[in-house]
């Protein structure tokens, strides 16, 4: 019996030991092993439409393509012509003699119908419609009874109702005056700036009166008591203004408009034909004369600049005035065509500008008040200049480089990733009349090359026929080896830069057709660590 008990204990202890040992074992990690994979990754086709957005492309009947690119050079807004500064007016009332005078309850003891004249920097406005703004009306009472102040703008109306504002001010003393203020939005009000007699400018009729409270006691006033009204106009944004805006010069400070047409492109581009149109639209109801000091093509990568040479840069441009349609307006468009015959627009464009710099002066109403006080502007009025460039894609490219850096979202982390090393195969069937030397590089955030992926290679140009058009697409293959070290580097930066240097086939200009295409397939042979992505 004793032996049986002992054997039972031994069995129990042994089993318990097994359990404990198993329980202490570290939780297993996922098994890992490397496999050699070969597989297609991506396929794509590239046409002109993929290089240049469809919105910029125009296709001729023969399949030839042109790029029509428009960029806005500048846009001058309403505040170029009219600004309404914040303005305050102070109105005081006091007995002109010692007094005292007693005013019975409900008595109106003074009424002041006056005008307010605004200082508008040379503008002579006859009408002003307010888009947004505010008027504050504050009354300070030093009299011993409650005073009701009524402020009105007989020349300002909203939907036919004149502007009126009332302020009830409790009693005060000269040593302890009582002041209350109220505000009213002016949005939508139309100001008749011709004054009460309709023969002035920048003038607004006002009416101010004081009344003792109807239910109060009588008010005794001496020459020591007074009432002060303060009327403040601020944050006025005009919706519409008309009058004479005055002859004056507006200097448009030198500035540069960014041009993205040639973003990431460098090299030599020779275009056979370029046409550009400078369209200046005047949305303000004034005659204007613009003097373009310069219009400059700037290539930020190379630092080269090309100034446009054309009569518009040599002489002032007269800009017609917009047409007031009563509630809206029709801008006047002034267009100037730039060709290789009358300008250096080809060199201007072939500089592959990343920006266009300009500086100009604009003279408003250069001939004076020829509209007889009917200059106008709307809130939406602008003077804008757009440059339209039409480039028929008949060109010659020499090492024209297209470069793009992309963030590669690889699975796994820099510390643990399944992809170990491999070779990328790029297969291309090129129907374009230019070759492309392809290079891949791993770069850092500052776009500095950390590793170049070799060997790379060149996608051959399509074969040209006697007419200079591609007759047969040509197949090419490029290999790019990605070592384990380079892959680690790529995981750390996540940035890869693709550079393609294009060279047109033949010696002269080649015509790009809408039908040209480049078929690309990317495959990979790689060593992959199963469960290697952390």
């Amino acid at each position, binding site marked *: 019996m004793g032996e*049986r*008990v002992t*054997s*039972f204990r031994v*069995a*129990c202890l042994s*089993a*318990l030991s*097994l*359990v404990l040992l*198993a*329980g202490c*074992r570290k939780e*297993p*990690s*996922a*098994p*890992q*092993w*490397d*496999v*050699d*994979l*070969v*597989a*297609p*990754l*991506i*396929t*794509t086709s*590239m046409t002109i439409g*993929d290089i240049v957005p469809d919105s910029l492309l125009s296709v001729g009947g023969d399949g030839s393509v042109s790029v029509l690119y428009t960029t806005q050079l500048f846009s001058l807004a309403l505040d170029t012509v009219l600004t309404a500064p914040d303005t305050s007016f102070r109105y005081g009332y006091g007995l002109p003699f010692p007094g005292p005078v007693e005013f019975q309850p409900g008595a109106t003891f003074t009424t002041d119908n006056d005008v307010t004249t605004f200082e508008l920097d040379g503008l002579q406005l006859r009408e002003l419609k307010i888009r947004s703004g505010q008027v504050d009306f504050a009354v300070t009472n030093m009299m011993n009874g409650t005073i009701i102040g009524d402020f009105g703008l007989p020349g300002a109306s909203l939907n036919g109702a004149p502007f009126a504002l009332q302020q009830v001010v409790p009693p005060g003393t000269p040593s302890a005056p009582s002041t209350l203020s109220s505000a009213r939005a002016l949005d939508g009000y139309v100001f008749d700036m011709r004054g009460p007699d309709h023969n002035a400018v920048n003038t607004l009729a006002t009416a101010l009166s004081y009344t003792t409270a109807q239910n109060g006691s009588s008010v005794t006033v001496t020459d020591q008591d007074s009432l002060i009204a303060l009327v403040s106009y601020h944050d006025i944004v005009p919706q519409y203004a008309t009058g004479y805006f005055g002859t004056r010069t507006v200097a448009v400070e030198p500035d540069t408009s960014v041009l993205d047409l040639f973003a990431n492109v460098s090299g030599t581009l020779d275009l056979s034909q370029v046409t550009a149109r400078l369209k200046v639209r005047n949305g303000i109801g004034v005659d204007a004369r613009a003097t373009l000091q310069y219009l400059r093509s700037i290539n930020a990568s190379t630092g080269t600049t090309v100034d446009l040479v054309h009569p518009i840069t040599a002489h002032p441009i007269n800009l017609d005035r917009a047409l007031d349609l009563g509630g809206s307006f029709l801008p006047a468009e002034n267009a100037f065509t730039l060709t290789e015959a009358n300008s250096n627009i080809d060199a201007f464009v072939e500089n592959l500008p990343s920006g266009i710099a300009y500086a100009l002066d604009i003279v408003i109403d250069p001939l004076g008040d020829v509209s007889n006080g009917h200059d106008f502007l709307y809130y939406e009025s602008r003077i804008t200049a757009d440059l339209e460039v039409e480039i028929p894609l008949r060109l010659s490219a020499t090492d024209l480089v*297209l470069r*793009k850096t*992309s*963030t*590669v*979202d*690889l*699975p796994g982390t820099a510390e643990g990733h399944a992809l170990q090393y491999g070779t990328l*195969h790029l*297969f291309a069937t090129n129907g374009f009349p230019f070759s492309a030397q392809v290079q891949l590089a791993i770069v850092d955030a500052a776009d500095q090359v950390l590793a170049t992926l070799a060997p790379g290679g060149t996608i051959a140009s399509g074969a040209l026929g006697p007419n200079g058009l591609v007759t047969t697409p040509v197949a090419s*293959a490029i290999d790019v080896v990605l070592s384990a070290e380079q892959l680690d580097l790529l995981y750390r930066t996540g940035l*890869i830069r*693709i550079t393609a240097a294009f060279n047109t086939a033949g010696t002269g200009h080649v015509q790009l057709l809408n039908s040209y295409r480049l078929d*690309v*397939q*990317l*495959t*990979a*042979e790689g060593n*992959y660590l199963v469960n290697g992505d952390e």
Partner: protein
Amino acid sequence: MNKWWLCGALLLALPAWSQPDAHPPDSTRAAFVTGRLPAPLRPVPAHSLSLNGSGAFDANTLYNDLVLGLYNGGRLSRGLRERSQDALNGRNRGGYALDLSVTYAWGTRFFGNDGWRPRITVADHHVLGLRFRDPVYDLTFFGNAAYEGRTARLAPSAFEQVSYQTVAFGAEEKCTGSYIQLAVVNGQSLNAARIDRADLFTAVDGRYLELGLDGGYWRSDTAGGAFGGSNGLGAALQLGLTLPVRIGRTLGELGISVTDVGFIAWNGNSLRVPRDTTLHYRGIRVEDVLDLEDLLIGKNGLQDTLGLAYERGAFVRALPALLEAHLALGTLRATSLPNTFAYTLAVDHRCLPGYVPFVSLRRTFGLGADACAHVQAAYGGFGGFRAGVGAKVRLLRHALLTVASPNIIGSVSNTARGKAVLVGLDVAW
């Protein structure tokens, strides 16, 4: 999870009572499988409790170092993988079965029948069966680079991995231990595929992949697939018949049983991919080769591209039923342990891919009044020829412990194939 299951089985084996009349079975069936032990023949105690656990994996070509490497994790060296690759024979099989069951029978009659009594069994099963062609192994462990310019014929291949639990109730014949039970089945998780045709051609330089595919994939809802979760319900039949036999002057017994003949209806969140198609893949189509930022796509995107997206919906699949039969002859006179026979011929089959009928021949020796041991030779299941050993010992008065390894060489060697252990404890009072 499987590791903990084994631990659980061992824990259940700890509380051992002793009793002289308990008659744990000779476990004549192939020990690879569940290890549920037949009920005692006689006499009939008022209460009978059987706790049985078994865990085993086996393969006819894959070596243990590879399987254990997959289980334990870490880096699998190329040499380790190549050793199993060299052993591939074109008809490769493998799998595992982890089973735990508790059976309790009690009383003296069943619905007025004195010859029967109630019986209940609760069981937990985790099984996987796998059969595959050599290229499946090659692609899995070495990739497709070696198949550049040629076709990898992957079919016929199949696998099925099921975890399920059963609660069965029925009746047991007191004299023979024959029983019949109906079980409610909880489907925990399913992962299964059947490939009738799969020819993968890898073009030179990976220009394209072409896959002729006829097969299907089934998966239970990935949510709630842990132990205790439920992704499906089903029913099953469990049946065991034990008959005393006499051949000439030799006594013995004949046993036949079926376990878990039934089905699971997997719920509406289950997934499947039935396909009979040919796929030609040249890579993901992208709009801008210069824009790599959206180039990489996930597994789901690739599945959609290949037309292999999941279909969501309920489906019914049969359970991996177990069929067993044994013939035992020759009572051992040296031991007082009942129903211990000198020779046992057993065969079983589990309805899983890669499982072939498992045939074993066992010789049992008495080791005194309260113990015996056996050796056995077997062939089949997921593996090939196997040698096994086992022992049975009476503990105190009311318990009988059985420990066996149907694959003793594999169980102690990582350079062999398969491992198996079986533990059973029968208590009667």
